[in-house]
């Protein structure tokens, strides 16, 4: 008993050290990003970003903009600003339009400009500008604000847009997460093959219990012993993909991948397609002629059941997206309070709370992966359930 308590105590201690370090680094990242948001408004951003309260000198830091910039996708992977110099990883921009053809260049060619003031001209003579992370064809002449786009009365550009299939920071993060998963699981699989029937070793001993957890706690109770095996590849992949990318997203400077609704949509569509494809006679019978329901109720029941096919994956999509995005926003808000009040003393309250939120997010990262996999397993279970009437 005592050893268990020490074990849990050590684990909690490590958790808090990790959460504390991440939180401090998030603070640094917010400071640099708010710096970046200030960039171009004036030269006084430095005081604001470093928390020196000098009301008449420093300008307001727009925390909403910083948060919006952090949680949305972008064409380059902005990490930190050092002395007004943005440090970022340039990523390939891939544009296609039927008239102008295919263009590929690095996002660093926009020189971190996001107001359409920097025009990128390709060898073929195509000209592009970037406004709020959207790429447009550049106008011939600059407008009154120096931007090469035409604006309507709501300040939305009206220029034509090419198809943008760029490798954005979310895609880069996803490729990173996927390569990490490949490295981990190939070594785990090789270890399991080599030591079949023996005790696991190394990284294998960390992941084997998790794999068994997905099988014994998620798949078998909800799908049943007979059918669970063919859903295991998807359940394991989706569980570890969401979990690992949630954790990667908590690192400072990392993009918010699982808080991107396009990513969660794709995952949810996989669940939808697998459920519908595997649906047996019973599953469709329950939708189009629910047993035990009087015939005059069917005109109401059938549309509801058909909508139900789609609302289930829709809620999967929204749940993951909203939980992760909300977590990121709360942490950034808490740290951002320091810069809103322009006082380092606010940090006395907001840094410990930020550490607490980060520790909570570590739990949420696991819980959301678990819930997504669990609900997917329940839907698969309902699709392959044998009749018991």
């Amino acid at each position, binding site marked *: 008993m005592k050893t268990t308590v020490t074990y849990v105590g050590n684990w909690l201690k490590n958790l808090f050290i990790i959460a504390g370090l991440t939180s401090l680094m998030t603070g640094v990242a917010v400071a640099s990003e708010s710096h970046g948001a200030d960039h171009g408004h004036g030269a006084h951003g430095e005081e604001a970003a470093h928390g020196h309260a000098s009301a008449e000198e420093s300008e307001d830091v727009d925390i909403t903009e910083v948060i919006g910039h952090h949680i949305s996708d972008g064409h380059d992977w902005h990490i930190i600003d050092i002395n007004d110099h943005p440090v970022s990883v340039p990523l390939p921009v891939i544009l296609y339009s039927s008239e102008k053809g295919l263009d590929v260049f690095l996002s660093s060619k926009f020189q971190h400009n996001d107001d359409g003031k920097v025009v990128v001209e390709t060898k073929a003579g195509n000209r592009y500008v970037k406004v709020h992370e959207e790429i447009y064809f550049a106008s011939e002449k600059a407008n009154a604000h120096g931007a090469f786009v035409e604006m309507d009365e709501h300040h939305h550009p009206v220029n034509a847009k090419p198809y943008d299939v760029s490798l954005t920071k979310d895609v880069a993060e996803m490729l990173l997460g996927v390569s990490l998963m490949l490295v981990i699981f190939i070594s785990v699989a090789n270890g399991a093959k080599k030591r079949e029937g023996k005790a696991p070793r190394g990284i294998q001993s960390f992941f084997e219990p998790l794999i068994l957890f997905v099988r014994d706690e998620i798949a078998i109770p909800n799908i049943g012993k007979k059918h669970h095996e063919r859903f295991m590849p998807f359940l394991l992949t989706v569980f570890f993909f969401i979990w690992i990318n949630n954790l990667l997203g908590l690192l400072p400077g990392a993009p918010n991948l699982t808080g991107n609704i396009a990513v969660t949509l794709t995952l949810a569509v996989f669940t939808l397609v697998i459920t519908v494809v595997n649906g047996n006679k019973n599953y469709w019978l329950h939708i189009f002629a629910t047993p035990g329901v009087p015939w005059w109720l069917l005109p109401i029941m059938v549309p509801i059941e058909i909508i139900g096919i789609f609302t289930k994956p829709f809620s999967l999509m929204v*749940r993951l997206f909203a939980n992760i995005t909300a977590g990121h926003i709360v942490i950034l808000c808490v740290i951002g309070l320091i810069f809103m009040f322009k006082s380092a003393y606010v940090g006395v309250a907001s840094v410990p709370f930020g550490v607490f939120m980060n520790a909570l997010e570590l739990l949420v990262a696991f819980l959301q992966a678990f*819930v997504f996999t669990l609900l997917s397993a329940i839907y698969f279970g309902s699709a392959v359930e044998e009749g018991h009437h």
Partner: protein
Amino acid sequence: MTAGVFAALGAGLVAIGAALGIGKIGSSAMEGIARQPEAGGKIQTAMIIAAALIEGVSLFAVLVTLLAVQAG
């Protein structure tokens, strides 16, 4: 501006509803576990599923309020 105020009110209502729902699940689950500690694991899983479903509905509402702010 008004859209923002109403969206904030809506978000507050959502929080009340979701808190009531999840609180009810939590209290019942604890009662259940106290009465029958050996069923704790099963009750916990069922509790998480039910909480996730309620959370899903409340997140729909949050999404609607977000869209209301953007539209308004």
